[in-house]
């Protein structure tokens, strides 16, 4: 469960902190597929980065299962929430398997050794997204849609109750977008995961999501 209490988000500028959005309060529960909407520059990505602990909140609180995000260690946070972002991953001989296996980072030893249990979880994560035939393919050989699915499989391998996706449909065609949202909806329904996804595809989002958070001008947040 994620709880936002009178949250103010922003970033540090040259002349001190710059507030992007404030007075944001909401609660998201396991099983929710939350659509985060709003115009460009309104603060969607800043909010997601704050919720993942990448940047600090200017004021207010983010509670993860009742405990402030600031009190989580990096390792604990890695086991609580995982991210999928738009930046393309590739090069360095990275295969789909390697990327999904990286999801096990919070659980494995110093030398990156995968135990049989880790390998089983990776296989299952790939299987859930129908990626097993592509597991040995290099990331650079995959389509944008397949690549996004690999990143979601990485999140599954990370075994976090919360998954946060920033603009996952940005480079996808119409059919791939629908397939992606179907996968997300299934994960919420079958595995009781809390998934928060930002996107500009409002029509598409409204078909699949069961909660929405829309950021509007003047620090107005519309929560449904």
């Amino acid at each position, binding site marked *: 469960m994620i709880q936002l209490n009178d949250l103010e988000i922003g970033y540090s500028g040259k002349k001190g902190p710059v507030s992007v959005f404030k007075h944001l309060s909401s609660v998201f529960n396991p099983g929710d597929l939350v659509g985060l909407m709003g115009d460009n520059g309104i603060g969607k990505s800043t909010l997601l980065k704050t919720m*993942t602990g*990448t940047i600090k909140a200017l004021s207010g609180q983010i509670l993860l299962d009742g405990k402030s995000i600031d009190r989580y260690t*990096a*390792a604990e*946070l*890695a*086991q609580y*929430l*995982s*991210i999928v*972002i738009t*930046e393309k*991953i*590739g*090069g*360095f*001989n*990275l*295969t789909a398997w*390697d*990327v999904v296996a*990286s*999801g096990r*980072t*919070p659980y*494995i*030893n*110093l*030398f*990156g*050794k995968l135990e049989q249990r880790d390998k089983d979880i990776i296989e299952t994560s790939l299987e859930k997204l129908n990626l097993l035939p592509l597991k040995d393919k*290099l990331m*650079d050989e995959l389509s944008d849609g397949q690549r996004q699915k690999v990143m979601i499989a990485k999140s599954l391998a*990370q075994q976090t109750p919360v998954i946060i996706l920033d603009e996952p449909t940005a480079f996808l065609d119409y059919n791939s977008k629908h397939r992606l949202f179907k996968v997300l909806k299934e994960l919420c329904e079958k595995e009781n995961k809390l998934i928060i996804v930002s996107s500009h595809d409002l029509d598409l989002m409204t078909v699949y999501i069961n909660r929405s958070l829309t950021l509007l001008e003047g620090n107005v947040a519309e929560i449904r």
Partner: protein
Amino acid sequence: MTQGKFIFNTICLLVLVLLLTAADLCFGSISLFSLSPDDPLFSNILYDFRLPKTLTCILAGSALSICGLLMQSLFRNPLAGPYVLGVSSGASLFVAVATMLLTSLNISGVFFVGKGIITLFSIAGAFFVTLIILMVSKKSKSNVTILLVGLMLSQILGASQGLIEYISSPDSLKTFVMWSMGSVGGTTLSDLRFVAPLTLILLGLGFCLIKPMNAILLNEQYAQNLGVNIHRLRISVIVITSILVGLITAFCGPIAFVGISVPIASRLFFKTSHHLHQMVFCILIGAIVMLTADIICQGISNQFTLPINTVTTLIGSPIVIYLLFRSKLNIG
């Protein structure tokens, strides 16, 4: 890469290292086979000259390759390496300053003081440049910018070094020019008592970074989300690479292209991204490249020995050119 394949490849490379080690020890201007083991010249050549040189080759090749690998993964750029990013030039400039100081103070010959000061200066120079490159990489995400800044730094440091050479005395100039050509022959067994354990400890510390280095291949944001402390990782890589590059440069001179080309060659041949595999392969291939370069250096002629930098450049450059022509290659 499966466990079996990894072990098989490691054994193959290890056998090659052992064969080249034997060749490097046996052959040179005088072949050891032409001498009797009882001949004092035999033990003199083997223990006082060949053995320290061969061990230096192995240590230098392994250390520089690991530095290249760590830098390429941290910057997520296959063209990163201690020589290309100006880290070796930083060490060189500081060594030039140290050489001049030591000669003017007339203490270069004092046992260990001279080499100790040169080593400290060399490490400080490498650390200084690595820190600048890291600050640039935080400001700019562009790989091209980082490489260009590294290139410009190399030029600035090279010009500053030229200036120091211009105003330095003939004695210190001669010492420095000989050093800057790169040589593995100047290290003694007593030097190795200090260099070898330090190199091995730093290589060992490199192995402790396997897990975060694997994660950072995705990108920094993903790595952070996977529990990696990016700040700590950066500092660790700076400390390890600066000390290793500084140490090796102090004793062997600036050695070109090993740091950049060995990790690339390892990725080309073994098609793996896992840093456990990459580190083991880089250590062994680095040793192979340096031993081969040394064998070539002394095998060309009985009359003279080529500077090792010439040979490493001749081996390393084609690999980098190959990379540029195969832009679709999945190495970075």
